[in-house]
Every structure is written in structure tokens, then in C-alpha cells.
């Protein structure tokens, strides 16, 4: 069964550093998403991406965040200058038509 792959599974970084979280969506999918879950809190929507542009973003997704689909297969989330409160599990998802989201296993980001 096709799956969404996220790397790394765990990323540790120092506050103020830039991090890039990587995702390989399912190959024929057209819609891409990032969600995050801070420990003990709900899974929150960050951003959706379609046709090479952001289609929607939440208030969490400020200027420190950016997304990119650099090579037609990867979908990345960049945090320019990490803060302690960015520590969370980050989930990537993709879908073919906008329905039926397939999620990855997540990347746990720890900001020290």
C-alpha cells in the first residue's frame, strides 16, 4: 500500500536554528498538508498546498514557516528560527483529489 514518508523521525535542534522537515507524498497526489501536535494538545492544521502554492494557512503558520515542493517528489516544511514552543510532532499528509487524506508517521521536533 502506498504511504507518505517523513524524515527524520526525530529532529533535535537548538533554539534559533533553522530546520527543514521532509516529506515524500504519495506519487500521484496533488494536495499536500502539514499538521502539528504539541505534546498533550490537539493535532492542529498548519498549511495546505495545491498547484505549487499555498491554498490555506492557519494563524500558527507565520513568517517563520515556509513550505516548498522543490523537485516534484518532496514536500518540505522549513522553520527559519526555531523557538521552544515549536517543539511538537509534525505530520505531513497528501491526497489525490482533496479527499481521503493519507498521513505520514510524523517527525518529532525537539527545540532545546
Amino acid at each position, binding site marked *: 500500500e502506498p*504511504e507518505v514518508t517523513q524524515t527524520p523521525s526525530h529532529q533535535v535542534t537548538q533554539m534559533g536554528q533553522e530546520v527543514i522537515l521532509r516529506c515524500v507524498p504519495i506519487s500521484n497526489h496533488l*494536495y499536500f498538508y502539514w499538521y502539528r501536535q504539541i505534546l498533550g494538545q490537539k*493535532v492542529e492544521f498548519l498549511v495546505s498546498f495545491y498547484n505549487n502554492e499555498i*491554498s*490555506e494557512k492557519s494563524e500558527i503558520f507565520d513568517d517563520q514557516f515556509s513550505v516548498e515542493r522543490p523537485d516534484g517528489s518532496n514536500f518540505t516544511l522549513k522553520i527559519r528560527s526555531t523557538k521552544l514552543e515549536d517543539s511538537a510532532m509534525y*505530520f505531513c499528509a497528501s491526497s489525490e483529489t482533496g479527499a481521503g*487524506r493519507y*498521513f505520514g508517521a510524523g517527525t518529532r521536533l525537539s527545540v532545546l
Partner: protein
Amino acid sequence: AQSVTQLDSHVSVSEGTPVLLRCNYSSSYSPSLFWYVQHPNKGLQLLLKYTSAATLVKGINGFEAEFKKSETSFHLTKPSAHMSDAAEYFCVVSDTARGFYNQGGKLIFGQGTELSVKP
């Protein structure tokens, strides 16, 4: 605004007994509702979805959920728990104010319910 509330943060059952995970929703529109499951170190897997067709929805692994508009509920059930059902379960509503589920609207998650299954 849409929201979901999962009424139990943790549910424990014995193997072979029924499972009930409770979810209430709030929506100004006719909602699209889902249950996702997350096993340790795995992604979020779609169990089932309700999108205004039949109110009793059957999903994978023997799970089903019933949409009750009068009670604003979408509880998840399974007649007989298996050890492999132990996981975190999320009730989710789509943001129909932004767009229909099929058009890529964002998903709004509940807090999650951890299901434990005792032998």
C-alpha cells in the same frame, strides 16, 4: 466554527468486549466527520468517514460509527475488541466553512482517546 470534543481521554476494555469511543461535534453546516487511528510510531490512518450519506458508517477492522444529528454525536464502536486495536483514536471534522472536504479543506481534530485492551 467547527469543533469536536472527545469525551474520554483514555478508555480501557478487555479483549473480546465491546468498544465505545465517544465524540460530540459542533458545526454550523452539515458536517463531514471522520475517525482516525494512530498506532505507536505509525501515521494517522483513516478508519471511516461520514459525508452526508448513510448515518451508520462502516469502516476498517470492524469499526463503525453512527451520525446522530439530534445528539450532535459521532461515536465509534466495535462489537469485540482485539489486542491490536490498542492505539490513539481521533475524531475529526472537516472545515466546511472553508470548503467541502473534497476540495481540500482543513481537518479539525479532537483531543484523542487512548484505547487500551487488556488480555
